[in-house]
């Protein structure tokens, strides 16, 4: 496995990323998976400022994720070319 420490926090608003893995406790990670954050899923970051949670768009809904949890969502940035997979 490739070591990767890009997290949701590193993705700027308007950019997309692919979920790689979730690095946290059973409960929360499970909840995130059930909300659609499964490996391979592409999400778009809608809002990301140090003042508040990260807002992402996944499967057509918007999800607010606290910064502490967003830091545990490992992602791979998606380049514009693969836009809309």
């Amino acid at each position, binding site marked *: *496995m490739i070591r990767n420490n890009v997290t949701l926090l590193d993705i700027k608003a308007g950019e997309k990323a692919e979920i790689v893995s979730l690095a946290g406790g*059973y*409960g*929360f990670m*499970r*909840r*995130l*998976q*059930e*909300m*659609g954050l*499964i*490996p*391979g*899923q592409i999400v778009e970051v809608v*809002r990301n*400022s*140090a*003042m*508040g*949670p990260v*807002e992402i768009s996944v*499967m*057509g*809904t*918007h*999800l*607010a*994720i*606290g*910064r*502490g*949890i967003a830091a545990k969502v490992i992602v791979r940035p998606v380049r514009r070319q693969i836009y809309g997979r």
Partner: protein
Amino acid sequence: MEDKKEFVVALAGNANVGKSVIFNQLTGGNQIIGNWPGKTVEKAEGFIEQEGVRIRVVDLPGIYSLSTYSEEEIVSREFIAKEKPDLVINVVDAVNLERNLFFTLQLIELEVPLVIALNQYDILERKGLSINGKKLSELLGVPVIKTVAVHNKGLTELFEIVRNALLKGEKKVSHLRYGKEVESRIKELSEIISKKVKTYYPPRFVAIKLLENDPLIKKEIKDEEILKKADKFRKELKEIHGEEAETVIISERYAIASRIAESVIERKSTLKESMGDWFDKIALDKVWGYVFFILVTIGIFYAVFKFGSFFSDLLSNWLESFKPIFMRMPLTPFWNKILWDGIMEGVIAGIGIVLPYIAPFYLILAFLEDSGYLARIAFLTDNVMHKLGLHGKAFMPLIEGFGCNVPAVLGTRIMERDRDRFIAAILATLVPCSARTVIILGLVATFLGPVYALIIYVLDFILILITGRILNKFMKGTPSGLIMEMPRYRKPVMKIILKQTWIRLKDFVYFAFPIIIVANVVMEIFSIFNWIKPVANFLKPVMTDFLGLPPLAGITFLFGILRKELTLVMLSTLYHTTNFAKVLTPRQIFIFGFVTMIYIPCVATIAALKREFGWKRATAVTVGEFVGAIVLGGILNQILKLFMP
């Protein structure tokens, strides 16, 4: 002859898809609804009786999954599995088909008879999309009905299908297949389970949940051989897929859901940026979002104050004008006093002082709840909440606390952990509820000016912040994080807003009003027999010497424990006037408002605390806030002596 049977139908689905709206429409029930995830924290029941069929309808809390991550999920899962409703109406958000089907698939795994209500269908159409309901119904093996619950569309058809399904009583079970590796293991495991153990749950469901490592199911099964086998399978799946078994299963379930969703959604025209996205650019902006929030809050209180004080004067004067008529009645002075000073003054206080403020307040609150803006406030305040040891979701029960602290305390159940819940509940009891708003607006704002009212609010918010910080420090555990679905904005439906307002007002009219009047009569009797003085004298050291209030104020605080409005109502009864500037100094008005704001949660809130957290913690909160209010009020009094007469 047909025997009259009672059927049980449960409403289940994701959070904030409209279950409670459908529940209210079907049963004529009074569930509080609103546009944010997690209003319904407890199951509610209602009945439909039609043509000899009696149906008990149960509204379950909204959940995303049938795992056992939160209290709501356990409530819903156990209800469906153990009480075995005759039918489950799965309310599905048409706009979010894929995510919602993820839950539908699990309901199918629970093997309960299902009917799907494809709700909020109008919003989907506005987006230029449509869903092939027939195809969806074939793929899932379940009837599908399109509904727009807020406008009461499609609910008659829904009821017809539910009724027919109940009367036919057929139980068709359909299965959705996972990938080969997972499916073969589910099969093997469920075969052993069906032979060896008896559970409430279907064996296939148990097998799936064991592979997902569900802690509650593991506890229930206990059988060593099965658990060992499940563990072995989990390891094998992890080896094959390179992910934990639960991740594999969740991914595959989502794959099924998205395959189904893709094949039934039809696009008619292209999407454009919705008004909501555009509005969020302001409402969630790191600067403008807060500016907007503060403006909205101040606007609301100013509007309530202006409206309230206008009608308060109007109504009080009008009701007071009846006094001569009452005085001319041929009664003994005793009964005359009871009738006017006891009963009528109570009525005047209720209608004249309280109603003009809480009616517009509830109306605006219902509007806010329905619009979807509340969840935006939760988003904005997430960082501040973290400093209090909570996360943004705590803001929803806290905001509800502005209406009444009781649902706020119950509403803390949307917090995932007990520690977070308790902190949120304590803070919720400090939120100025509508009763306290009446006192602050009707007394402080009216006789000292709106700025002083604002100062009391600010002091209260500072107190909430400090209390939160202290609790966060002394209660073990780190705060958990926010995961919240952002609801779409919705154009509030007038009929629903008015109904919401009425549900809350009804509570005031039927429940609080009698208390106000009875308390008033009791007080009048006390005053006729001269019993007030001894009580007042007893309270004098604290009330007068420390807080600088008239001794009589202590008595109003005693009544205020029943309902906070009573402090002001009793004040008007004791002094026989609603012009409080005549009987209290500005400093006394300020201190009175401040102490009332925080001195004790009312009995209803104490009862709610007891129910949620037990006697010990309820008592601790009550005593703590009482002592806190007296001490802080006293200190404030000493400070104010320097500025105010």
